[in-house]
């Protein structure tokens, strides 16, 4: 009888909505083992939930993570960019892999469908942005299928209720980070990101459009590459759907995806938050499999 796969011991730092949703995903994973759910506020709803699920919690934040040196292999940081800048050296010193869900961008940008393998073994990876996780794989597919991609643009529409105060005050950083990600992965010097908040009730699900200016577009090849990419993404983001297959309209290549969230802790309409978490989990699970092989 083959021994069961050993589960990778992990910790989550940041007990807000994102951290809590991440916790539920970790608990569901057959190859991850959550040893600690840490933050600053024991009274937060996330801490309550973790406690009910018998997950060890701590309000000592980064200090409690440090106490687990040698016992955990990976930490998800769902705090904030300024906080992650303080945490990153601690994680490095501990020798744990840091998965950064903030816009801090200390480590390599990781979009699992595109560069998962390159990122395995790195001490710090950054999960870009929600629009980035949705658009970058397709921007990369476009670059694979077409010779001269001059310009790539992505527009995301998200429900107003899924954009909390942190998102709203950091809109500029969101756009910058997403554009940077597009440039990196699509190999395209000129990129643009746009974000729309829509307050309609019932809440809209996240929709992302990717557009490109291509000198001699190969639509057929683009469709093939995009379809393959969508299939790959669906493995770790089940709610990712191609709602408008690549087409050429008004001299631009256009395609649209929608992300329905899993609804683990965050509502289903918050696919934008869900996709980053799914991507982080995909990376962590790959680390687990790598360790076991």
């Amino acid at each position: 009888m083959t021994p069961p796969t050993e589960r990778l011991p992990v910790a989550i730092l940041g007990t807000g909505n994102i951290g809590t949703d991440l916790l539920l995903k970790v608990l569901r994973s057959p190859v991850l083992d959550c040893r600690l759910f840490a933050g600053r506020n024991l009274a937060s709803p996330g801490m309550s939930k973790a406690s009910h699920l018998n997950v060890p919690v701590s309000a000592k934040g980064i200090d409690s993570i440090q106490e687990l040196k040698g016992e955990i292999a990976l930490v998800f940081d769902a705090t904030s960019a300024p906080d992650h800048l303080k945490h990153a050296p601690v994680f490095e010193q501990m020798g744990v892999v840091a998965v950064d869900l903030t816009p801090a961008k200390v480590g390599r940008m990781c979009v699992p469908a595109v560069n998962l393998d390159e990122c395995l073994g790195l001490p710090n990876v950054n999960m870009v942005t929600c629009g980035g996780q949705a658009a970058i794989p397709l921007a990369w597919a476009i670059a694979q299928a077409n010779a001269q991609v001059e310009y790539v643009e992505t527009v995301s529409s998200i429900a107003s209720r899924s954009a909390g105060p942190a998102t709203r005050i950091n809109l500029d950083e969101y756009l910058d980070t997403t554009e940077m990600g597009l440039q990196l992965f699509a190999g395209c010097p000129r990129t643009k990101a746009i974000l729309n908040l829509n307050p309609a009730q019932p809440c809209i699900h996240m929709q992302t459009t990717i557009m490109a200016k291509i000198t001699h577009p190969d639509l057929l090849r683009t469709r093939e590459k995009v379809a393959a990419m969508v299939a790959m993404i669906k493995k770790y983001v089940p709610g990712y759907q191609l709602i408008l297959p690549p087409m050429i309209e008004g001299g631009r290549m256009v395609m649209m995806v929608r992300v329905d969230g899993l609804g683990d802790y965050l509502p289903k309409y918050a696919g934008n938050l869900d996709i980053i978490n799914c991507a982080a989990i995909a990376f962590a699970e790959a680390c687990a499999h790598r360790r076991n092989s």
Partner: protein
Amino acid sequence: MTDQPSITVCDATLRDGSHAYSHQITLEQVTAYATAAEAAGFSFLEVGHGNGLGASSLQVGESLVPEGEMLSAAKKCLRRTKLSVHVIPGFATIKREIVNALEAGVDLFRVGCHCTEADITQRHIGYVRSAGHETWGVLMMSHMAPKEVLLEEAKKLQSYGAQGVVLMDSAGAYFPQEVTAKIGLLASRLDVPVGFHAHDNLGLSIANSLAALEAGARIIDGTAKGFGAGAGNAPLELLAAVLRQRGYPCSVDLYRALDAAEVAARLFAGSLPESTGITIVSGLAGVFSGFSKPVQRAAAQLGVDPRDVLVELGRRKVVGGQEDIILEVAAELARGSNLSAPNP
């Protein structure tokens, strides 16, 4: 004689007009019109892409001329008339667009957002204030929120440092009673002056503008010959006439304003706005006026009725900046599939 406060007249011809010209306004046109606007004595001249700074994109159309050049060219023509820009966080960033616009000599930054999302403007308004320049807040698609919500959002803008608040009728959907109620409430409860930006989809732009003024608005937007998105804006030459007839003091010289309208008619001949089935349905459906042209294009390409596309966009409560949804809707209609709400 009344001691009415002076009305600030904002000329958005070279910004809203960009929508009517597929954002292909040339430097020559900028210079020619800006000269006429300066002569007419409008308080502000707004220049740039229809969706504001940094909006040149595949999403809402690429500008022919980089915005820095347009702004510099306009600035050269202006002396008393001040230069303003429209800025939408989510399209524009501080580091790129606002910093560059400040360098180009922009005097007023009108920072806009969908009418329920004022908190996304906090940093941008704050930045302009710290740079020592004037900034207003703009609530777009304001027909989509009740007056109490608009007041709440306007108060947020004011608290961030906005020195004026403008309600935009981006869809040309308002009727005068609604203008009276919404502008009236804001004018009575805000400290800063309140403004109105009309669109003519239902032929009510002047009536609505007048209602706004009577309800206490001290800022009014218009464009020469209504040159703007959809069925166009409140025509400035008519506004100037109406302001004069009703005794509202303003800096505008009526005859020079009429001349500026003639200049615009010549410069933009063939693209002046008109009322069509599309713009009417757009107004009724409450859809952003700037969608008219892309809806027409997509509908033509996919072989569907553009009016059906507009009705569905209105049903989905799509906001400005969401032009990509036009394609999704047109494609769905073309497939003839059951149109479902965005979430299953």
